[in-house]
């Protein structure tokens, strides 16, 4: 976070920005600082960021905190309720649920960001080109988008993964590929607005190539909608990958992945609800956290 700036004298910040090496980059970083400050003041964003930060730190550092090996059969007593020895109880194989819940953040927070990255990268490319050039390719691309959106995401994923076989790579690829046209649509509509602006015409007159205009001139000006789209997609990616794990089409045993754990544990629901309850609560907080970030970001950028 940046050092707190005197909010009552915004002129001074602008002056400082203009005096720096490049006027343009000074203005840009001034805008970025403004956005960061607004985010810091947004309660929605800060709470969401705190929750997500907790799970990200947990996904990286869980080996330091877990009392037991999350995949080890550590207790002869299976399906035990929470106790002093096993804070969240033990599962059907005698594994420690507390350790598994902590360790379960890592698979989710690996799959979802990677899938989002693929979808966003692909979507930016497709969106920039279709929005910039329009024409027949644009029409065809948008029809394909409509066709893809005619299925609920989970049905496409079930269809493709059942045929390719369940694996982490397939889950990442399918979610990433399905996200591509959705992101492309957002990027495209932003590009359609930007390409009418004077700076694009000016860049053309200067003799810049189309690629330069697309990536160096237009792209930096549409980072706002892209940032919002990334956070929204991340939420959906977590949602979808967890659902696929639950349907036994994603990450496989003995991973402590939350969706998978719930899928296995639901058989023992009647006798030991803690096996499903804790991973479900963990997943719920993570997803709500990501959505709070998305919401805060959207509010701030739309102001």
């Amino acid at each position, binding site marked *: 976070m940046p050092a707190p700036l005197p909010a009552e004298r915004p002129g001074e910040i602008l002056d400082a920005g203009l005096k720096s090496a490049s006027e343009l980059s000074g203005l840009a970083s001034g805008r970025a600082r403004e956005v960061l400050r607004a985010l810091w003041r947004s309660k929605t964003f800060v709470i969401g960021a705190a929750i997500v930060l907790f799970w990200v730190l947990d996904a990286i550092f869980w080996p330091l905190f877990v009392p037991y090996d999350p995949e080890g059969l550590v207790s002869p007593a299976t399906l035990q309720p929470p106790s002093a020895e096993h804070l969240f109880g033990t599962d059907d194989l005698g594994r420690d649920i507390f350790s598994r819940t902590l360790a379960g953040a890592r698979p989710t927070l690996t799959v979802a960001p990677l899938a989002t990255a693929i979808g966003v990268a692909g979507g930016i490319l497709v969106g920039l080109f279709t929005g910039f050039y329009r024409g027949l390719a644009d029409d065809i691309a948008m029809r394909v988008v409509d066709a893809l959106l005619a299925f609920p995401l989970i049905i496409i994923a079930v269809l493709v993964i059942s*045929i390719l076989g369940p694996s982490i790579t397939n889950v990442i690829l399918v979610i990433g590929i399905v996200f591509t046209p959705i992101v492309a649509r957002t990027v495209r509509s932003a590009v359609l607005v930007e390409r009418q602006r004077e700076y694009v015409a000016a860049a053309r007159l200067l003799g810049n190539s189309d690629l330069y205009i697309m990536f160096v001139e237009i792209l930096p000006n549409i980072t706002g909608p892209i940032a919002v789209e990334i956070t929204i997609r991340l939420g959906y990616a977590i949602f979808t990958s967890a*659902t696929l794990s639950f349907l036994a089409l994603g990450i496989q045993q003995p991973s402590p992945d939350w969706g998978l754990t719930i899928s296995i544990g639901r058989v023992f629901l009647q006798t030991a609800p803690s096996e499903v309850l804790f991973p479900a609560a963990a997943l719920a907080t993570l997803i709500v956290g990501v959505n709070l970030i998305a919401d805060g970001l959207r509010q701030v950028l739309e102001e």
Partner: protein
Amino acid sequence: MSRFLAKRLVLAFVTLFCVSIILFLVAQVMPGDVGRAILGPYATEVQVRALDHQLGVDRPLLERYSTWLGGFMRGDWGNSFLLHRPVAAIAFDRLYNSLILGGFALLLIVPTSIGFGVLAALNYGKWPDRVISVAGLSLIALPEFVTGIMVLVIFAVELGWLPASSHVPSVNPLDWFRQLLLPSIPLMFVLFGYISRMARTGTIESLRSNYVRTAILKGLPRRTVIWQHVLRNSLLPTITVISVQTGYLVGGLVVTETLFNYPGIGKLVLDSAVQHDLPVLQATVLLVAVLYMALTLLADVLYTLLNPRVRLAA
């Protein structure tokens, strides 16, 4: 207006055509060898070839596609690989069960969410608005199996009020609630978020409009202003959202029907996918897409019929 609808209808057919091509490619081309995909890695080459020939998958791609699509349109959807029964009979049976579950969820949640959405708008910026908005947002975000598991733990395990797995209900209305209430709760949560948000936005917009201000300044009672002027106009966009979200329901059904062991179309999609029952899978997914398109189209028609601006402009 009829021109607008005709255009929408043509677009829907073009999209469905694209859908059928994508679906065919995914189900028939992506596995590489259909016979091998069904028989598994331990079958001999001869067995695989024989099955390929029997299924007709050794013929050219274009011919297979046109045969399949032609058959689908005539209602001849082929036979299930596993159940050896006509796919159409199975699919419509399951669809009927899903319509009961989905219809039940919609019937309960639509009035509730509109009510809460309007309540939030009338208390714009105050605590009821904050609570309803935050709750709605969180409920949209949660996967159906997470909320489903939570209600299962609370109502089926801890309290023991309702069964943990559901059947198609009998005609007895009490049985409807007993069988359908739990599996429809995860669906209702997601729908609540979307519908209440639309109802809220629509109401806020019409509250700010000139005609509502005129009505208030004219001295009409608050109740009349809200019922006669605000609600009529604010519920238009909500109708569109309801029909689009009905399409979502089909995806949500895959998860809830699996979780509650309910024999609907969502579970059929999942089961046929996992068991590589390709005729069932292809037909049910295309059926889902047709249904979704029809609902979106219905939304457009309703919107045009109810909105005088669109109706008169065209």
